[in-house]
């Protein structure tokens, strides 16, 4: 009896070792599949085009071929327009991030901590905009922005994204748990509502605001469709548009193309590595989201 039992444990030990190694292999294999294209981008960006398209691909560059970066920044026509386009992306993404965080916090605070006539209706209306995808309203939005004379301008790129329902919802949920007693204590001490917001609410909601900020910045950094619609001049284009242009101009110089892509990715990757908990926390928020 004793022996049989021991044999069984031995067997299950072996099978659990097999399962364990399979799990590790699967995780590592997937990690390689996920990371290989990223590594490819960075290694190819420092290789001459002839090496990038060599079969098989030489994963380790022989030297650092900086000319790709120079060509990417200079552009095929030598106009250095990419620098301007990078600047545009920074201006638009940062402005949208700042306004989204501020407006979401103010609105979320108003909805969470004040009782006023029509509050629930306002909240329902804002949540209803969740159901209006940008892709469905981009054409009329384009007409609105053109009518306001804002096409081909920073205002035109920024204004349609000043705030969004997700941000307001996120901040409201965060503020609802904030103790009312602290706010009332501040009121008794004579603080105005604006002062309460600035000195009590803002400092206490940094994690939620940081999460919203990185998610907003990321999605604006990624925005291609809207600039495609309203920007015509090269000076007002953003990074994604420059990449589109670079492909159609000279599809052959793969090294320079990867340099352009690397330059576009480095800021957001640095942000991700420094603030990964906010990125991951932002994704995790959805699983606990309740309407």
């Amino acid at each position, binding site marked *: 009896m004793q022996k049989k039992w021991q044999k069984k444990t031995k067997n299950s030990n072996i099978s659990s070792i097999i*399962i364990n190694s399979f*799990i590790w292999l*699967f*995780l590592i294999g*997937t*990690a390689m599949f*996920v*990371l290989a*294209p990223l590594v490819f*981008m960075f290694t190819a960006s420092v290789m001459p085009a002839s090496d990038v398209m060599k*079969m*098989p*691909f030489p994963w380790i560059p022989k030297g650092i071929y900086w000319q790709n970066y120079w060509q990417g920044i200079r552009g095929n026509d030598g106009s250095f327009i990419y620098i301007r386009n990078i600047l545009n992306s920074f201006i638009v993404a940062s402005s949208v991030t700042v306004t989204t965080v501020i*407006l979401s916090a*103010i*609105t979320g605070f*108003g*909805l969470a*901590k*004040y009782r*006023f006539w*029509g*509050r629930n209706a306002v909240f329902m*209306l*804002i949540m209803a*905009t969740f*159901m*209006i995808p940008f*892709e*469905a*309203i981009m*054409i*009329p*939005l384009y007409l609105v922005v053109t009518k306001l004379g804002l096409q081909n301008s920073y205002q035109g790129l920024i204004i349609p994204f000043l*705030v969004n*329902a997700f941000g307001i919802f996120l901040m409201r949920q965060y503020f609802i748990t904030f103790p009312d007693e602290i706010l009332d204590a501040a*009121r008794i001490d004579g603080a105005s509502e604006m002062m309460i917001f600035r000195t009590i609410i803002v400092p206490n909601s940094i994690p939620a605001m940081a999460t919203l900020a990185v998610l907003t910045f*990321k999605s604006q*950094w*990624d925005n*291609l*469709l809207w600039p495609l*619609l309203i920007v015509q001049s090269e000076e007002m284009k953003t*990074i*994604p548009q420059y990449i*589109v242009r670079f*492909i159609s101009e000279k*599809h052959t110089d793969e090294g320079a193309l990867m340099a352009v*892509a690397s330059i576009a*990715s480095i800021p*957001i*990757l640095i942000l*991700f590595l420094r603030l990964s908990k906010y990125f*991951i926390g932002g*994704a*995790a928020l*959805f*699983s*606990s989201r309740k*309407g």
Partner: protein
Amino acid sequence: MKYPLFKSGIEQKKSRWGLFFVIPSILFFSLFSFYPIFTALYTSFFRKKLLSLQPPDFIALQNYAYLLKSPDFWNSIRATAVFTIGTFIPIVILSLILANFIVSRKRFQQFFQMAYYSPAVLSSVVVAVIWLLIFDPRGLGNQVLNFLFNSPGVDHKFLANSIMVQISTMVVYSWKYLGYFTIIFIVGLTTIPQSTHEAALIDGASRWQDFYYITLPLLKPTTVLVSVMSMLQCLKTFSTQYLFTQGGAPMAPINVITLNIYHTAIRDHRIGRASAMSVILFFIMLIFTWLQFRVSRSEEVSY
């Protein structure tokens, strides 16, 4: 009278401040969300050309009638449906497996989460450009597949063949969003109390039985949520398909609905018809969003 319209003293002051705090956002949403969606609906009943000085003609439902008869529009519906189904199913299954595997590890949990998530932070354009080079006839895609299947010299025509180019867009999208949904699953998994698993294991359940009879049913709300979210994400796809066609891939197989709206409005200048397509897209997505809300409300599990 829960929220009296007229109040006195501090309550009234507070209620005015509340209104003051939400007014900027209300104005914003009125002008940049509600007004455009109603304009889209209104414009869809007109024959309206971009840059044309003529007043638009009212043509009632003719734009919709045209679309329902247009093979090009039905092709877009097909392309979008194929892309959505072909992308969200692998995403849901793979991220469910990965999340379970990661949670079962004692070490490197953080590393795997970060590694899988990293493509999601890149912009879609950069992602599309990287994969354009990988799918080049001389690129890594062919090299890796030929190495795995030991078939030297075969060109899989990732961007030329009409079926392969659809699969290619699915691979790109799944690659980008896999980690994102894995993290949502991980959060769902960690909310299942450890004691439930322990009870099952003490009762003699194998690891597989524990997964099948305990984890999977308790994870159902997360699974449904991930499914609907990834479907919504896929219905909105634009950049990958746009970049691929710019990079020389054939248009018809991957002419998804957003791409079609963009071309109809900007290249063909047919605002009325593009608006009708937008309204149809809006209603398709409305159904899915409504589903998402219903699901996240009703599917709560108690442990």
